[in-house]
């Protein structure tokens, strides 16, 4: 049994890695992503915050589209070419769906404890939305984000 656990630990936990802005990546746990939408039809919501000003109609549901690109770098025009449909839990504890804007197609990877590192320093906001961070083989720090925080009203 111990040998199997060791192997599992070495293999790590499956996660999706998203490029949200050119060269800036985040990760979420594998079960949190449900679907990818290419070239989404976005519906602008008047007076919504700049980082979440669209919804997308997916399976007869309006999902909020959160642009981390806009949230991280408000001066730069975000370019969300794809959307990841993700699941989160509302502050009332209800299961919900949302969408994250992506710069490129996500990649699956396995992460283990030995890759743990500190959060990137280029944006103080990472502390607010991240639950952990890991370093890739290429040396990039990738925050693992908390979707419940991102899609809450406290962001």
């Amino acid at each position, binding site marked *: 049994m111990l040998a199997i656990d060791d192997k599992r630990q070495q293999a790590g936990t499956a996660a999706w890695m998203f490029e949200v802005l050119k060269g800036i990546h985040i990760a979420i746990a594998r079960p949190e992503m449900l679907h990818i939408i290419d070239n989404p039809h976005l*519906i*602008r*919501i*008047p*007076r*919504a*915050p700049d980082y*979440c*000003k669209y*919804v997308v*109609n997916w399976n*007869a*549901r*309006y*999902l*909020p589209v*959160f642009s981390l690109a806009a949230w991280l770098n408000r001066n730069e025009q975000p370019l969300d070419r794809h959307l990841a449909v993700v*699941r989160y839990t*509302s*502050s009332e504890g*209800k*299961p*919900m*769906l*949302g969408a994250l804007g992506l710069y490129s197609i996500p990649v699956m990877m396995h992460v283990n404890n030995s890759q743990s590192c500190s959060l990137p320093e280029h944006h103080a906001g990472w502390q607010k939305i991240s639950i952990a961070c890991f370093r890739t083989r290429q040396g990039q720090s990738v925050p693992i984000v908390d979707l419940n925080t*991102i*899609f*809450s*009203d406290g*962001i």
Partner: protein
Amino acid sequence: MQASTHQRQDFYIARLSMGSTELMFPQVDVVSIESVFDLVKRESSSFVIGVFELNGDVVPVYALTDQLELLYEAPEKRYHCAILRHQSGVFGLLCDDVKHLELHDIEFQSIPQCMRHETMPLTHLFSYASAAGEPKTGFVTNSDWIFHYLQQSITGGEQCLQ
């Protein structure tokens, strides 16, 4: 999974068009529809672009862009004014067009949590088909909510355009 309310009943809605945006009010909020040609225009710094005198009441009138930003002046083509009753009075909102809709089996969905803030003027969204069968999104509000939004915007000032 989203916060939504199934309403298997008939809904009577007043659709106010402002450019590309259509705001949906409960029909009971609409007191009357007036022509903008009867508006008494006002030079004002308080975003009241004019007034109507109706039954002895002076009704302040406001105009919004299609992104619901307050305007100092009435935009072209806003030929109609919906007079709306809120909790403590009435006010007018200029619009391109007003249509009364009778909708069935609507599923209202709350504005997502991450979009809400103190001055968000919308309460719900819903999906419906236009008369031509085109899919449309209804932006739901009501006169109390919009009046609160107008007051907040006037006080805040930063959301307004000249």
